[in-house]
């Protein structure tokens, strides 16, 4: 392991978070103390609505915690972290822009050189199998292709921190498997620190260096499981080892009584 790979990139220090609602305060996060290393792919796995998304938004500086602090690259976050992109469950494409125009949006907002950005965007289209769809409209694409465009948009500024909130949650099972494999390829080609929210055990095991298991709301981290499977794992990881991880995670959720969320 290199030096970079063992330094913490995201640090959660004593984080608690509560939402205010008409029924009073709703505690989303109980007590989170954890580090995510540079270039590490970490999945946040837990039941729906447990507060994983909240933690993700806190990690990007898109929200501030009720208590505690988030450090990104050693500094406390008070605003959206600059070297960061986020992919949501919904693609959130702008229907009025071509697919290429959608991918170029972050460059426009940063005021980056348009020609260089366009070159990079076309390269991303090629890498994600979208070549030839640059000048089509989002509505002409399938759900999986739209989500690829959203992924390209997130990757355009080549951010170091990539936040993904159930990015494949709205896709069909086959498309989803392909996206998992493609994402691993992109990750291996250009290492980043990735936080990946999911409630799919297999997806988490296939993609992650480490899986953090969350309890029901208010969420705590109940297990921290390093996944030592050889990369690239692709469609076909070491089946026995893969299954052992899935079983281990399943048992933790069984003990917590939150297993009804798992569908595979």
């Amino acid at each position, binding site marked *: 392991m290199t030096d970079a790979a063992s330094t913490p990139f995201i640090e959660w220090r004593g984080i608690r978070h509560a939402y205010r609602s008409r029924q009073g305060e709703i505690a989303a996060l109980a007590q989170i103390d954890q580090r995510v290393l540079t270039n590490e792919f970490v999945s946040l796995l837990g039941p729906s609505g447990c507060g994983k998304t909240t933690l993700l938004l806190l990690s990007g500086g898109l929200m501030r915690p009720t208590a505690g602090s988030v450090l990104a690259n050693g500094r406390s976050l008070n605003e*959206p972290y600059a070297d960061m992109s986020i992919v*949501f469950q919904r693609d959130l494409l702008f229907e009025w822009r071509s697919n290429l125009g959608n991918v170029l949006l972050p460059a426009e907002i*940063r005021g980056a050189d348009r020609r260089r950005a366009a070159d990079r965007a076309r390269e991303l289209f090629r890498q994600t199998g979208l070549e030839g769809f640059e000048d089509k409209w989002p509505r002409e694409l399938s759900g999986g292709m739209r989500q690829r465009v959203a992924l390209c948009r997130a990757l355009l500024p080549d951010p170091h921190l990539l936040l993904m909130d159930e990015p494949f949650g709205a896709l069909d099972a086959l498309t989803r498997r392909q996206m998992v494999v493609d994402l691993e390829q992109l990750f291996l080609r250009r290492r980043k620190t990735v936080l990946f929210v999911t409630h799919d055990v297999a997806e988490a095991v296939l993609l992650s260096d480490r899986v953090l298991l969350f309890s029901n709301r208010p969420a705590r981290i109940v297990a921290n499981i390093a996944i030592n499977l050889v990369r690239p794992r692709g469609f076909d990881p070491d089946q026995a080892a893969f299954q052992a991880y899935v079983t281990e995670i399943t048992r933790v959720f069984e003990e917590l009584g939150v297993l009804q969320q798992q569908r595979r």
Partner: protein
Amino acid sequence: MSGSDPARKSALAAQSLLRRLLRRVLEVTLPAVGLLVIWQAIVAFQVLPSFLVPWPGAVLAVMVAQWDILLEHTIVTSSEVVLGFVLAIAVGIPIGWLIVSFSFLERTVYPLMVGFQAVPKVALGPLFVLAFGYGVLPKALLALLVAFFPIAAGSAVGFASLDAGWFLLMRSMRASRLQTFRKLQVPAGLPAIFGGLKVGATLAVVGAVVGEFIGADAGLSYLLLIANSNRDTATEFACLILLSLLGMLFYGLVALAESIAVPWRNPDAMRWSAQGTA
């Protein structure tokens, strides 16, 4: 792929566009011709007395003989409509945005707007004549009043139809408030805004007509009233036709602007722009 392939494709596309255009022209003109035939029949068989409904030929004769006078009054009415419509846009769209952006305005100003919408604005006409005289301005103001509400309401719907995820996305890219407005809120709101503009355009014509009825010294409706008192139904019908053409023209201009500004909603424009950049 052979080199002639794209050329052939675009020739085929041009041909199909021509065919569609021709069909569109026929779709519009054939019913109009049918209407003319019925009109002619109504006069010929005296279904309605001839002092009420003139011969189509007589109306045409008036339009040819009096074209300069008719044109002069058409220009007056047009300028009233355009001024009123532009004012309605200038006031309506910002108010629609304000209502959506500041919730206290939605709670305080919007009910007032709805209440005001219930006032028959025609009834304000005499007041405007008192205040602003017989010129273009009071008619334009009446057109503004009538056209304002659908434009403001359409804009409010347009700006409001955005969910929080888009704003979060813009924030994650560290977009400024202005960038968020320009790159997200305006284009996302355009379809609904144009919906309001189309209704507003035809209503603006109504506003100008009503304004001229109340008190005017020029304009198509002024001419129409004079012709009516002279029992000159041919001129009256000429005015009616010009007024409806005016309404269609303004509606068409808005629709044209829409197809340029909102190409992702228009399948034809989409096909063409996709070809242009391919």
